[in-house]
């Protein structure tokens, strides 16, 4: 229970960001939908186009819609010479606004079409101008139906806003995603309950406005509206400007335990150096480098091979030290991003099998795997099958699995343990490799590049001596055994630790 109370402590700032994002998207959605809805009710062609577009948006999964605006805004920014943030608030706002359009436009059109034609004829006959007709007759009659649409949009928006975590916008989704990765169910529960409570409260309040107008109970809808506005203001209180400005740094993390731990390790050091630290957890590995070079985050840990293949589009596999040097050179030249150094361990993709199974089938290397792969199922993390590393492995070894199934990392290990899959794309620094006695297959053809953990800082911090000084002691300091042990503290099922606790343990272990 105390874990749950601890988790609830993380709610206020995330709730504030969540409410601000949802409310902004809803208001923008209303501002766009209202004129569009009125126009659509008057013109069948406009109705076909606007409702068709809004319905099309709904068919795109919300996660994909959010991700879609990253490349769109990135190229737009390049087009106008930079300055448009491709991550964080803006893409989330656009995606959620588009999501909010359909129910509002649809209800506006249905409501306007549903007005008794005799009433419209009477409005014309008494000599109302089109504006008077809209204000005095159509608006009040369509209001309950329209507000029902806004209510639906509000609930959708609040729900979908949890996904904005993946594009670097803080929301209650931060707790859900982080909790899922580290199997911290108290965190997941606190995040889900907060989001659900927010949605229910907003639903009830807008419902109160809707009913108050429908039943002509003035006090009811006015009271509901006042509570709604006041609640929004109070919930966003933590976001209101406070002193600290330039001393606030944002530490980014991808969506797995090691990243959460390292982010806290970095954050603790920066706090000790006098910075105010915020965390952006759960960033997709496709967007995190962009977030750094765009200044949305100030520092994070990436892996050499990931930058090499994904960002630099290189296919060759040089020796570790040369690769890190080449990355440092490229990052500074192309993006102004600073590379402070390697942390001292590697987190490579490593194909792993259950030890007993590997011995029985006499498989020790990827070469051995080729012959049995057609009878086997590969379990991977969510992105591996799309990554250039998998393409490189397939080029080097003609692997054809009977089936491939992506999992979130935690469940990938479970799937191997339970026999749902025979081989997984594990991570070499993962504590579960030793704990579960897995066999890591060797890569005799050197298809998989090195994955040294490297500390990357944003252009604005690359020449900040005080900032660099706080982080430099981490370089070369973390051996893979220590990282594995820390990871396992968070990933194991029994006596699970939080990333914060594991980070403190790691710092003590390596003497920082």
């Amino acid at each position, binding site marked *: 229970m105390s874990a749950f109370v601890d988790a609830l402590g993380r709610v206020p700032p995330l709730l504030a960001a969540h409410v601000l994002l949802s409310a902004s998207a809803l208001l923008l959605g209303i501002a766009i939908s209202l004129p569009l809805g009125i126009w659509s009710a008057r013109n069948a062609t406009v109705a076909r186009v606007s409702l068709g577009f809004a319905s099309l948006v709904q068919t795109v999964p919300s996660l994909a819609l959010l991700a879609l605006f990253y490349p769109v805004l990135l190229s737009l920014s390049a087009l106008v010479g930079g300055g448009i943030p491709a991550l964080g608030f803006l893409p989330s706002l656009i995606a959620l606004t588009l999501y909010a359009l359909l129910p509002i436009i649809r209800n506006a059109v249905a409501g306007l079409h549903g007005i008794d034609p005799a009433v419209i*004829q009477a409005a014309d006959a*008494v*000599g109302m101008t089109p504006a008077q007709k809209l204000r005095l007759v159509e608006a009040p009659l369509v209001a309950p139906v329209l507000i029902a649409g806004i209510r639906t949009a509000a609930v959708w928006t609040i729900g979908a806003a949890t996904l904005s975590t993946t594009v670097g916008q803080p929301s209650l989704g931060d707790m859900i995603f982080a909790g899922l990765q580290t199997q911290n169910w108290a965190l997941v529960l606190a995040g889900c309950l907060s989001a659900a409570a927010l949605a229910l409260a907003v639903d009830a309040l807008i419902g109160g406005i809707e009913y108050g107008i429908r039943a002509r109970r003035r006090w009811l809808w006015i009271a509901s509206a006042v509570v709604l506005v006041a609640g929004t203001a109070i919930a966003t209180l933590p976001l209101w400007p406070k002193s600290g400005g330039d001393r606030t740094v944002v530490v980014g993390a991808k969506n797995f335990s090691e990243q959460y731990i390292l982010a806290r390790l970095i954050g603790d050091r920066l706090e000790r150096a006098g910075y105010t630290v915020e965390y952006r957890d759960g960033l997709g590995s496709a967007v995190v480098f962009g977030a750094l070079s765009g200044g949305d985050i100030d520092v994070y840990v990436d892996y050499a091979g990931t930058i090499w293949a994904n960002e630099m589009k290189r296919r060759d596999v040089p020796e570790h030290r040369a690769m890190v040097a080449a990355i440092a050179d490229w990052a500074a030249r192309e993006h102004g991003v600073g590379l402070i150094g390697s942390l001292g361990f590697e987190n490579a993709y490593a194909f792993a099998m259950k030890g007993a199974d590997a011995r029985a089938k006499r498989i020790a290397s990827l070469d051995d795997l080729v012959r049995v792969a057609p009878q086997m199922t590969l379990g991977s993390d969510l992105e591996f099958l799309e990554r250039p590393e998998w393409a490189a492995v397939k080029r080097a070894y003609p692997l054809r699995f009977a089936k491939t199934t992506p999992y979130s990392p935690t469940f990938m290990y479970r799937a191997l343990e339970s026999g749902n899959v025979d081989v997984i794309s594990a991570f070499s620094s993962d504590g579960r490799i030793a704990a579960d006695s897995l066999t890591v297959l060797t890569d005799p053809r050197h298809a998989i590049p090195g994955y040294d953990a490297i500390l990357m800082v944003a252009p604005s911090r690359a020449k900040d001596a005080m900032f660099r000084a706080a982080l430099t002691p981490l370089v070369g300091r973390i051996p893979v055994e220590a990282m594995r042990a820390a990871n396992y503290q968070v990933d194991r099922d029994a006596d699970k630790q939080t990333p914060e606790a594991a980070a403190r343990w790691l710092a003590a272990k390596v003497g920082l």
Partner: protein
Amino acid sequence: MFPASYRNMPDNLPALAFDRVTKRYGATIAVDSVSLEIARGSFVALVGTSGSGKSTLLKTLNRLVEPSEGHVTIDGTDVTAEPAPMLRRRIGYVFQNIGLFPHMTIAQNIAIGLKIAGRSDEAKVAELLDLVDLPRAIADRMPDALSGGQRQRVGIARALAPGAKLLLLDEAFGALDPVTRDALGTRIRALHDRLGLTTILVTHDMAEALLLADRVLVMKTGRIVADATPADLVAGKGGGDAQALVQVPRAQAERLQALVA
């Protein structure tokens, strides 16, 4: 269309004039080149079967229908000379479905014409309720709390509120029971005389037309086929189409008479 000498004598102008008014909907001709003059202060009934074009012709007066060809003038001025909302504020229009605003009280419904014109007069609502024989107490009620007959009275009060001198009744009594219908017809005729209105009543009920109007026009397939006083029509004049319509109430009256005899 008028002699030049009339131009400076508006009192002698016909209140309303239709000059070769035609309304087409695609290939269908609803009103077929109708020319007609209606004198100030007259109570004219426009009678015909469904689809004869009588309602369409009526609506060209307040521009709820725009003619395909021809001109409509009120007091010598073309109805298109000013924006339609301005024109309509001076014309009372009452129709079968009434169209009371369901979100407004009876008082707000009656005063709507004043409100949109920027005039507001509380006393006027009570006066208008008296005029159409409604108790003043219903002023604060909502339309859905009223009976059909009461609602139509509110519709008439709403039409007369801005001080309209031209009243258009478009099947205004069509949905009412016979007793209410008769009472309301009589009341309208009394208001017409008292307020000095020019009234056009569109109806498919020849008996109603004969009993209320000074002049009866019969329409068929978009044309006016008879134009006569009620007395002349009852006396058998006005031509075959008109007599076919007059025959209905006459035969009913004779059968009722036979029951007594």
